């Protein structure tokens, strides 16, 4: 899949809550094929303190409208600057980057996301559904204000939700949910993205239940396309690049 550097046009910037926003960006040309789990490196213009690009996953893709959606959490200077984007602004991206979730032979999948980690799971869920996979989401949020596009997730499959404070769904984190506690073996694949502690716990449980599990890892990246060796994950195959050999890893290979 050929990587490219391209100027997208921002066509919408939707504030989801006090920290999350969704950018819809449009290409002048037809989009290349994008895979769930892949990401882009965004140039952050207009900030005199942001030097490197910022990696952001594909949250949703609409080939007909040549549009990609990005779900972004404001955590620092780069994501804060991007939060101010208005329709018509240009967003320069290097994309598509990274590997993707694998789904060969999968018939019943559980997608476990926490916080902004749900981002790659919507695109994954959509893709799985179109491949006739039985899709189930277990999504954890801080509270009901942090819920993101539940309807879109529901359009792909069953959705189970936890909130830390119990203001929606079950109270607690996804790790407290009964699906996790008892039901992992009912799925032939677990996908997870979210805080590292959550992913690690999910991975261990999946391993115990002998269910195949893939996690999409975060890392600090300088290039995003394999040239700098800054974004390393320790694995049973040695140090691998999260931006090329990842961001999706089979959890059996990860040395946490």
């Amino acid at each position: 899949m050929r990587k490219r550097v391209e100027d997208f046009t921002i066509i919408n910037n939707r504030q989801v809550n006090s920290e999350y926003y969704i950018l819809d960006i449009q290409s002048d040309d037809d989009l290349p094929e994008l895979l769930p789990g892949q990401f882009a490196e965004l140039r952050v213009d207009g900030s005199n303190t942001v030097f490197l690009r910022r990696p952001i996953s594909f949250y949703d893709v609409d080939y007909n409208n040549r549009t990609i959606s990005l779900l972004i959490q404001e955590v620092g200077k780069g994501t804060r600057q991007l939060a101010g984007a208005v329709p018509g602004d240009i967003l320069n991206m290097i994309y598509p980057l990274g590997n993707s979730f694998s789904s060969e032979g999968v018939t019943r999948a559980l997608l476990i996301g926490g916080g902004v980690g749900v981002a790659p799971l919507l695109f994954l869920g959509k893709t799985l559904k179109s491949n006739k996979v039985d899709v189930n989401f277990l999504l954890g949020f801080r509270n009901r204000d942090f819920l993101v596009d539940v309807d879109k997730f529901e359009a792909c499959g069953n959705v189970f939700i936890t909130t830390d404070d119990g203001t929606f769904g079950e109270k607690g984190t996804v790790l407290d949910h009964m699906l996790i506690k008892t039901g992992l073996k009912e799925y032939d694949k677990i996908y997870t993205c979210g805080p590292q502690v959550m992913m690690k716990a999910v991975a261990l449980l999946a391993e115990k239940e002998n269910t195949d599990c893939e996690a999409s890892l975060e890392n600090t990246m300088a290039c995003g396309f394999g040239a700098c060796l800054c974004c390393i994950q320790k694995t049973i195959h040695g140090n691998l690049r999260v931006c090329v050999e990842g961001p999706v890893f089979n959890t059996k290979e990860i040395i946490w």
Partner: protein
Amino acid sequence: MVDLAVQIGNLKFKNPVSTASGCFGYGYEYEDFMDVNRLGAIFVKGTTGSNREGNPYPRMAETPSGMLNSVGLQNKGVDYFISDIYPKIKDYDSHIIVNVSGSTIEEYVEVAEKLNELEKIPAIELNISCPNVKEGGMVFGTHCPSAIEVTRSVRKAFAKTMIVKLSPNVTSIHEFAKAVEGAGADAISLINTLLGIAINAKTRKPVLSTVTGGLSGPAVKPVALRMVWQAYHSVKIPIVGMGGIMNATDAIEFILAGATAVQIGTANFIDPAVSMKVLDGIESYCLENGFSDVNDLIGALET
């Protein structure tokens, strides 16, 4: 038409634009973005005697107009390079120059000897300035007798063009430039990264697993230009300049300061096709300013 060819030791570069070690992988990582064959040279990742896993995560920190890295020479070793990487890149129309690193003089010599056998490797860059490995590395670049010794030893083992890459973490760059010139270097390259630290005030921990790392990017450009200028006025061998080059203007500044060729490092991460823009920009500059030969710009700073 501008004559862009420059001479580094016995080696003719078809143009002065090359990419810096550790910032351009092995070249093929950039094939989607540009025609890597247009580069004067590709300086590939630091190569050691055997496989190295490098330093633990995190290895990178963004800093004002720059970044710190502590990759620590992760590579699969010279034998893997020869068997698996060399065949893929040897037919590029750009010179492939291997950045040779090590912890001991023996390791440097071993790598150089093996590379000496490769027909399509016309030169090595002796990295005596890596700040990110515990033993060796920077010590060779900050202790003059060691710099001389490693240069001399590798000189005996490597018959083709040998470029020695200097550390900027020294009091007198001219002292090192002269020393390695005397010890047999055909050219010098500089600067490698400046030793720095990034701290996360929230966690009260260093950002990098290794505490210190190497600073690169535009932040270091004034220091790099100064060192190129000082080195230019102290040695006769050519200089390959680098440190914070983001565009053609930056590259021209290095050439004016005394660099015969330039390397582009960190900028490749932000704009993977930047080296082509630098190349085109140098040509335009020459045309606009009436220079028919880029060599007329080398060291042409009017002081």
